[in-house]
């Protein structure tokens, strides 16, 4: 894992001191809320429905046990004993006091963490594949490039006041586990003629105008990755609309310019930017990359799993994934217990996951955009004691990628932007499909719920998506089918008129029943939908 050097630490410590002074001046009445708001937002501090909310960055979703324990400590000492893991691989605390914020940021800085650029019209936390460095199907570990982008984008003077927020994802596998093409820039490390380069997809996103990022360039030499990213940003920063917040994202610019014209401008800009010497010397990149290199795992470790316990066997089948090194596995910890709140974890649960990472997973954890946690490097021989510990803490629900593994934004229960509650709908759906056999029979089915058009719950990318809207002061839920955030990326289509809270659960059951009656061998829900189209599902839903 990357460790801060003296520059990183100085930057973060200086920001803590600066923000402490800003808070002090705000509490003393020396600055108004209008003056203070952009300052607190630059440090991830929002004023939400019930209190201040602090969003803490987890760069590319990677953290160690020391950092994870600090997240538990903050939940316990400053919040209400829990945190909420988000679809941007971050964590949010919902009950923060303004007067505590500087102390929290200081605590975070002590473990090389911060909340910088988790809000505002800047480059946000760089996201990545939660299985990076462990996945059997990856070309290389994408995180050194994500880290390079983190360093480049932190306090970037030119990109601190973009037309709108900007999200970048980096992956290095054919299977897209990071919704890469639904980012402002999606970078995929690819291979060509025996060398590695980067495919750039630019102009994706969800929100009120969902778009899948088109391919801008299929192979950028890795030595040019930063310069090319900078060129993409510069064209956006110059021409992106600042007059209309709803048209300010880069996807709108590219849509209006056209892909070819945007590409032409990026190439022109790149020719100039490349001469500026932005890309790091190889030695500096190697210094970063070396920190992600692990002690070699023992490939002779036992590859056999004792599946005597039937509950353990089910969990292994559903939540454990293949590791690139024999005798090892990737453990996916579901934060979606039956009836629970998707993404929430208590301080005790966070501490437990930290303990397990330290003992069994080379001290590493990952936060996933699906609001789960990963132990990336586990010996297969250790899976059983890990499962036992997780099970005792209500963290062993065997539902990864099943219908109850629901992504849900905080919705109207917490968020001041929301129009409808998301969490109760997720809970009711999970209860309706509580039978684990029924869930497994349905197979992979990604259900995603947003409480407003901003789409933090990725409803456009759900095999089944739900969008909460306000209809004359009453919560109403629109149903979408056929979306995907994976390598088979697609945007969901609205089925028709919306439903109330109970009606949407009934509608989903009619949809899944229809799927079961239509599917052929081996078809996932989304495959059947793509084959038969909307009509039979619409007939099943509305009659």
């Amino acid at each position, binding site marked *: 894992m990357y460790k801060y050097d003296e520059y990183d630490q100085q930057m973060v410590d200086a920001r803590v001191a600066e923000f402490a002074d800003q808070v002090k001046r*705000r*509490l003393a*009445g020396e600055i108004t*809320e209008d003056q203070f708001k952009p300052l607190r937002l630059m440090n991830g501090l929002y*004023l*939400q*429905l*019930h*209190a*201040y909310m602090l969003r803490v960055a987890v760069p590319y979703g990677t953290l160690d046990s020391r950092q994870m324990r600090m997240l538990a400590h903050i939940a316990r000492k400053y919040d*209400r004993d829990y945190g909420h893991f988000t679809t941007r691989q971050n964590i949010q605390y919902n*009950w*923060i*006091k*303004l*007067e505590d914020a500087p102390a929290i940021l200081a605590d975070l800085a002590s473990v090389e963490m911060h909340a910088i650029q988790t809000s505002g019209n800047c480059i946000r936390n760089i996201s990545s594949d939660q299985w990076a460095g462990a996945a059997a199907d990856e070309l290389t570990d994408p995180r050194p490039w994500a880290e390079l982008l983190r360093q480049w984008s932190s306090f970037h003077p030119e990109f601190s006041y973009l037309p709108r927020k900007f999200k970048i994802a980096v992956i290095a596998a054919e299977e897209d586990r990071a919704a890469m093409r639904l980012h402002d820039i999606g970078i995929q490390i690819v291979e060509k003629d025996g060398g590695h380069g980067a495919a750039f997809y630019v102009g994706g996103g969800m929100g009120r105008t969902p778009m899948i990022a088109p391919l801008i360039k299929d192979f950028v030499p890795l030595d040019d990755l930063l310069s090319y990213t900078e060129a993409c940003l510069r064209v956006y920063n110059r021409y992106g609309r600042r007059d209309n917040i709803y048209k300010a994202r880069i996807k709108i610019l590219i849509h209006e310019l056209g892909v070819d014209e945007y590409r032409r401008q990026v190439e022109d800009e790149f020719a100039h930017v490349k001469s500026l010497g932005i890309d790091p010397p190889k030695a500096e990149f190697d210094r970063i990359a070396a920190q992600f290199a692990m002690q070699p795992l023992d490939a002779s470790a036992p590859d056999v799993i004792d599946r005597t316990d039937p509950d353990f066997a089910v969990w292994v089948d559903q939540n454990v994934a293949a590791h690139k090194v024999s005798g090892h596995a990737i453990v996916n910890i579901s934060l979606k217990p039956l009836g629970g*709140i998707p993404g929430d974890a208590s301080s005790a649960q966070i501490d437990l996951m930290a303990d397990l990472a330290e003992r069994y997973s080379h001290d590493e954890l990952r936060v996933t955009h699906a609001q789960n946690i990963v132990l990336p490097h586990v010996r297969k021989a250790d899976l059983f004691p890990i499962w036992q510990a997780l099970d005792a803490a209500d963290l062993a629900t065997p539902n990864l990628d099943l219908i109850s593994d629901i992504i849900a934004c905080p919705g*109207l*229960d*917490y968020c*001041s932007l*929301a129009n409808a*509650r998301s*969490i*109760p709908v997720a*809970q009711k759906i999970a209860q309706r499909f509580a039978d684990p056999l029924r869930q497994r029979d349905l197979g992979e089915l990604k259900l995603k719920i947003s409480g407003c058009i901003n789409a933090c719950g990725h409803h456009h990318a759900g095999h089944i998506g739900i969008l909460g809207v306000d209809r004359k*002061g*009453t*919560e109403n839920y629109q149903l979408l089918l056929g979306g995907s955030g994976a390598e088979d990326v697609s945007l969901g289509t609205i089925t028709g008129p919306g439903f109330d809270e109970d009606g949407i659960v009934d509608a989903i059951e009619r949809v899944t029943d229809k799927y079961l009656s239509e599917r052929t061998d081996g078809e996932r829900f989304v495959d059947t939908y793509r084959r038969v189209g909307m009509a039979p599902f619409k007939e099943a839903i509305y009659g």
Partner: protein
Amino acid sequence: MKLLTGNDLKTGFVTWWTGADWSLHIEDAADVGEAGEAILAVEEAARRVNAPYIIAGEQTADGPRPAHIKDRIRALGPTVRPDLTLKPADPAAGDWVI
């Protein structure tokens, strides 16, 4: 009726104008009639409230009730965590929101 609400500057907690002060409890909220803007300006300048705004509500047997569900959730707390609301011991508290 019209109600004045905002957040406490230090804690961020939701507060309601009682006619003389700010309270965490919607039951204490007063109808500000047409005086909301004037009260809001004075109170915000004095830093006794943060990000205040005026909402519509109705008087009920249980006291003032905001017209919009968002403000009713603000008044009580998250419906999915009854233990974190202002009325953790009242199993029917959520009904007031919905």
